[in-house]
């Protein structure tokens, strides 16, 4: 497995039996492939479905059945379709146990920026603000640094925020990092990555736990 695949596989283990989970567009949707077949879990997509089944090839696709990212998905036994008001009622009222989201920046105080780069990219936030603000637990999946090597885990976000203080955990290609009252705490290391590498790639203080740091 490459670093990205390991990150996805590790993030999948964040999902525990019984959860209702929304997987953000992009990397997070890949998590589906790593969920145990018999695990009781309910996937939600904000365009109006719970119980998301496998993505279908074009020739088997139902033109009326997509997820929020536009992928042609399928139902499983117990799926339900509903409209946008019900879909976000579920998000805002606390019925979403977990959301996994992408990020431009995450701060050590749990702030998240993932929808706007002023002057460069501002297509609107879609459902991200409500997912980030209201899911019971918010975790982020992102490369540890951007394409130019700049850190995405920062002491403070510089971009317009999606939500304040809501990110609990970050999965990257290098590490699993928790957001605590004291700041970023390193919880796990990717195979072959050193503490020093993670520290240098992080734009804020990285607290090391007293205990052993597991590998993933």
């Amino acid at each position, binding site marked *: 497995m490459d670093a990205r695949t390991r990150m996805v596989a590790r993030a999948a283990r964040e999902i525990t039996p019984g959860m209702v989970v929304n997987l953000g567009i992009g990397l997070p949707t890949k998590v589906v492939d790593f969920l145990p077949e*018999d*695990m*009781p*879990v309910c996937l939600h997509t904000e365009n109006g479905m719970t119980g998301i089944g496998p993505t279908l090839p074009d020739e088997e696709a139902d033109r009326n059945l997509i997820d929020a990212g536009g992928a042609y998905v399928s139902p*499983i036994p117990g799926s*339900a379709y509903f409209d946008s008001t019900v879909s976000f009622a579920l998000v805002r009222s*606390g019925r979403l146990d977990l959301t996994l989201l992408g990020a431009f920046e995450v701060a050590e105080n749990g702030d998240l920026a993932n929808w706007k780069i002023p002057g460069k990219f501002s297509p609107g936030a879609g459902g991200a603000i409500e997912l980030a603000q209201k899911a019971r637990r918010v975790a982020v999946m992102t490369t540890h640094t951007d394409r130019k090597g700049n850190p995405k885990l920062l002491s403070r976000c510089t971009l317009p925020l999606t939500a304040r203080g809501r990110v609990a955990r970050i999965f990257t290609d290098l590490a699993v990092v928790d957001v605590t009252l004291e700041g970023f705490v390193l919880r796990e290391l990717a195979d072959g990555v050193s503490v020093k590498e993670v520290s240098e790639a992080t734009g804020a203080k990285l607290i090391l736990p007293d205990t052993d740091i597991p590998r993933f």
Partner: protein
Amino acid sequence: MKLPDKSLSLDAAVARIPDGATVLVGGFGVPGTPFTLLRELMRQGQKDLTLVKNDANEAGMGIDHLLANGQVKKLITTHLGLNANAIAMMNDGRLEVEFCAQGILAERIRAGGAGLSAILTDIGLETELAEGKQIVEMDGKRLLVEPALRADVALIHADRADPFGNLAYAATARNFNPAMAMAADLVIAETERLAPLGGLSPEEVETPGAFVDQVVRLSEISEEYGVVRR
């Protein structure tokens, strides 16, 4: 991946309701009232309940059992006209009653289920129902703040369900059930028919199971559903 199973026995489901709980109760008159859950709640005897229901059923039926049994300290409702016991208890000061316009009660519950804080409306302005309520001015118009009503528990009556808690309703037995089924931390649905997972089509589901915590299959249909001969 498969969807979780939330089916539970009647007594175990109702045992999750604590004393002092605020409880949403579905139904408009007879249809949609969760008579079996209510009867079990009477049997278990949880106390100091605040009930939220469109009406107080009729004397000797539904929530009237809980009223008569002294389990209810407050009732939030729209109309008590068919229950003389409830009116007498209210008049004697044995029951605190808060009245709400019917559609506003539905919207307050829905707002609770939708994770909103309140709605702004002109319904009831310049009537007694506006007394004591917060007023907000918007675009030069005075509006009432009607706070969202989210409860500890919702007791729902469904026509059909699956073990994940997907629910469908019959005819005018919908009424307050779909909104209430979204608006509590513990949503318990009794169902006349329990299909296996996949037994309800995704299109016919009216309350997605993600809102529902426990599903109780009725072993028999309460005789209180019988056609009332007046």
